[in-house]
């Protein structure tokens, strides 16, 4: 079972860059081994940013947490 702390630890790797760019990534909820996150701020409405972060965050989560299943951007 994944924990909020483990997911946050991965998100923290990109957070400084996003915050420096006036944005953030928020962990909204955990659903079993999946997570819902929300982009806020500058990149929130940008389709390219969604693709970047979706791929990047999900890959990083799977690397760090083997049982992690899927990421949902909401």
């Amino acid at each position, binding site marked *: 079972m994944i924990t909020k702390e483990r997911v946050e630890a991965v998100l923290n*790797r990109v957070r400084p860059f996003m915050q*420096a760019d006036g944005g953030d990534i928020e962990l909204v909820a955990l659903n079993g081994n999946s997570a819902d996150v929300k982009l806020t701020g500058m*990149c929130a409405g940008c389709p390219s940013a969604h693709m970047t972060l979706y791929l990047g965050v999900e890959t990083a989560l799977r690397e760090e947490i083997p049982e992690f299943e899927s990421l949902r951007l909401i």
Partner: protein
Amino acid sequence: MTTAALTMDSVVVGRSARMRAVFEFLRVIGNSESTVLITGESGTGKEVTATLIHQSSRRKHHPFVAVSCALFSETLIESELFGHERGAFTGAIKDRPGRFELADGGTIFLDDIDDVPLSMQVKLLRVLQNRTVERLGGTRTVPVNVRIIAGSKRDLRQMVADGKFREDLFYRLNVLPVALPPLRERREDIPVLMEHFLERYFRRGGDDTPQVSDAVRQAFLRYSWPGNVRELENACERIAQTCNCGTVRVGCMSASIMFRAGSQPADPGVVTPLPAAPAAPVALDDRLRELESNLILWALKVSNGNKSKAAELLQIKRSTLGDRINRCGLGRETEHPSDAGVEHADAV
């Protein structure tokens, strides 16, 4: 690859002492006829360098033929390089000159020379020594007047020591050695190269280069660029294709850059190496500001963006941290998201 109009002055080098040293050397050897051996990791610009050497030589009005020795199987290499006569093998329906003959009067660039099998190396050695080729299945010996530039991604000297590369061929090739440093060893060139490629790809799409956020600059500086300049170029092309909001922000970058850059916080102070040459000038203010931004980004990261905690980590007052963040241009968008991208005039 475009080879037109590539000159010593038009090519973007960067300000690192190592690249300047390389270019000084290229100027020196421009008029030489001797064999050049360019060593550098994949993506460091071996073919660009070879083209440049050719373009600045007396042979510039003659052909420049680049051939990757990794592309062909052993028998194909021979036919490619030396050519063949009709009937030399099944499918050889007509006479065909090899790359050496096609490069006559000019320069041949033998890239990936480290991938040439040992059995083939002896044949290359003969060409280098005698400056003649024999087509496969042919009996004539054809003299060729070519300057030879070889490219290698591996250290040939080590391959010689390991018995994987002929020592005599190595000495034949290693007359004028040019070593291209990997991008991670000349990080101070990253901003210049980034500007250059962004401008190129935005202009190709008919657009002006937009502002680039400091977070993107920091990520580019911190990333290790295993694919070197080629990877940097591709990253810039990607940004030019995907960014349509007027400011290049972290979301436009490839995810791997951001993640790998973000996972290297261990020594935030050590980003730019000291110049290799003792006499090279260093812009102290730029370096200090870079160092300062790195440390601040690191502290913000470690403290999850909590500025009070970050200030504690940096042993400065919370208010001082705010000032420093603004001074480094890290805070504009954090503080005023709606103004983001408007004022970047003072970006380095």
